[in-house]
């Protein structure tokens, strides 16, 4: 099996599993308890906080552990909104292709009377800093732009965005779920005020993540209860998960250079191979993208049937087709970069694992070519395109 859906989730690393099991066995106490096994759990928790902070250039007291990226996104955005409201500022800027954890939170705020501007995402899968700057108003309280896109892998000009936000004294949150552990992220250099991360995207466990909030930002609680996480996130801490996340993030960040070098070579080999398929197109900029991400549209076919046939060939991938989402519309990300519905239904995302080989890349190229050709052989759209009854889009 070739697992090429690492943007969906990753396999846990051996070390992360070992950490998790060892904490479950040896340090099962409640970090809030005063006896020894509780205090040892507290030590594990605080060491994890240091490790996670170090991985992004933050201070330990700036890290809040959460249940994952979605919770962190929700808490950051609600915090930005509430802090803004205190000063009478109720305008938020984001982009059209954010994760739903961001977009749906913004929708909720709109119903409460906030105004949201979604910046357009250009064909290359990037926003333009000057368009962001032009959108900032007197009453803008928060900018939330993702670090790297989960579907097409494009990496936003985060440092420029951070600079603009700092200049205009607007809080800047970034959903860095796809970036952490894959490309270098430093909250100080990037001038990031809040950042969300999820452990299972870098070989850590599911159900755990963290929110970085720059010192001085008063977080709004989403969960009320005990005084854990300095009173900002109640509930007994997921100590084994948090410890395993710390192990995973350290490992991932330490290997970024080595992994990226290898992955970029594999990614570009895969892109070059898939480009040979007629009437296909790479989604998003070819170089300003995550080292592991390949995303294509193939005209005349539909994504779900492509995925099922690739699964038969032992390849795990994903698609932005409507049929894979259970809704009628294809991926909002592909629509945001200007792909029309007809073409967006025929998308394929391959997100590579660090251990992928050239042979596996070549096998994926061969398999995708075969499946696309097969599905086109009985596609009425393809027939019309070839017969000249319809114009090719790609």
């Amino acid at each position, binding site marked *: 099996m070739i697992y090429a859906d690492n943007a969906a989730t990753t396999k846990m690393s051996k070390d992360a599993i070992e950490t998790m099991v060892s904490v479950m066995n040896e340090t099962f106490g409640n970090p809030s308890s005063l006896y020894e096994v509780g205090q040892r759990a507290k030590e594990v928790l605080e060491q994890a906080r240091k490790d996670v902070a170090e991985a992004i250039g933050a201070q330990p007291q700036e890290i809040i552990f959460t249940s994952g990226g979605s919770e962190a996104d929700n808490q950051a955005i609600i915090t930005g909104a509430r802090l803004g409201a205190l000063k009478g500022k109720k305008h938020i800027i984001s982009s059209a292709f954010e994760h739903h954890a961001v977009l749906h939170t913004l929708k909720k705020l709109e119903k409460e009377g906030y105004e949201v501007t979604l910046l357009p995402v250009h064909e290359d899968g990037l926003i333009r800093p000057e368009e962001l700057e032009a959108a900032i108003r007197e009453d803008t309280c928060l900018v939330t732009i993702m670090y790297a896109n989960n579907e097409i892998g494009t990496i936003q000009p985060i440092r420029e965005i951070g600079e603009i936000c700092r200049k205009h004294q607007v809080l800047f949150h970034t959903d860095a779920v796809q970036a952490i552990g894959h490309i270098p992220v430093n909250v100080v250099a990037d001038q990031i005020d809040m950042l969300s991360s999820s452990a299972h995207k870098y070989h850590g466990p599911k159900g755990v993540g963290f929110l970085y909030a720059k010192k001085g930002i008063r977080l709004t609680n989403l969960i009320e209860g005990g005084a854990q996480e300095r009173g900002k996130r109640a509930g007994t801490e997921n100590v084994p998960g948090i410890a395993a996340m710390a192990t995973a993030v350290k490992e991932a960040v330490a290997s970024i250079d080595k992994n990226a070098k290898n992955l970029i070579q594999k990614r570009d080999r895969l892109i070059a191979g898939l480009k040979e398929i007629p009437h296909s197109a790479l989604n998003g900029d070819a170089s300003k993208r995550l080292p592991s991400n390949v995303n294509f549209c193939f005209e005349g076919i539909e994504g779900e049937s492509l995925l099922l046939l690739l699964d038969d060939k032992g390849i795990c991938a994903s698609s932005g087709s*409507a*049929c894979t989402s259970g809704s009628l519309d294809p991926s909002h990300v592909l629509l945001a970069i200007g792909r029309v519905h007809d073409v967006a239904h025929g998308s394929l995302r391959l997100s590579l694992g660090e251990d992928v080989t050239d042979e596996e890349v070549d096998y994926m190229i061969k398999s995708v070519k075969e499946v696309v050709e097969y599905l086109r052989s009985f596609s009425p*759209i393809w027939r019309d395109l070839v017969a000249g009854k319809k114009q090719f889009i790609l």
Partner: protein
Amino acid sequence: MALYSEKVMDHFRNPRNVGVIEDADGVGEVGNAKCGDIMKMYLKIEDEVIKDVKFETFGCGSAIASSSMATEMIKGQPVSEAMKLTNKAVAEALDGLPDYKMHCSVLAEEAIKSALEDYEKRKQQN
């Protein structure tokens, strides 16, 4: 549990009656690319009996399987019987479809009916 039944996967992996009938007596096309499903059915009819049927489909696994099953169900049937084909019967023959995929079986029923209507229309014109 798998997304689809064994029957759906069988008809998806080995679709029956795939292709085109050049001198078809009735052709029907339903759906649109915007929604991600298009089905096209070709019928060869002799003495009011469906002698041959072929399909082309752009769509997901259940759309391809529904097309395949629907063609199997009407092949060799009198036109009057084929007109009675329901999407429910197609879905049942496939051992069921997930709720949000039931529209694929509806599309199969509509494609068959559209091809049969085209046949009736051509008959009247002759």
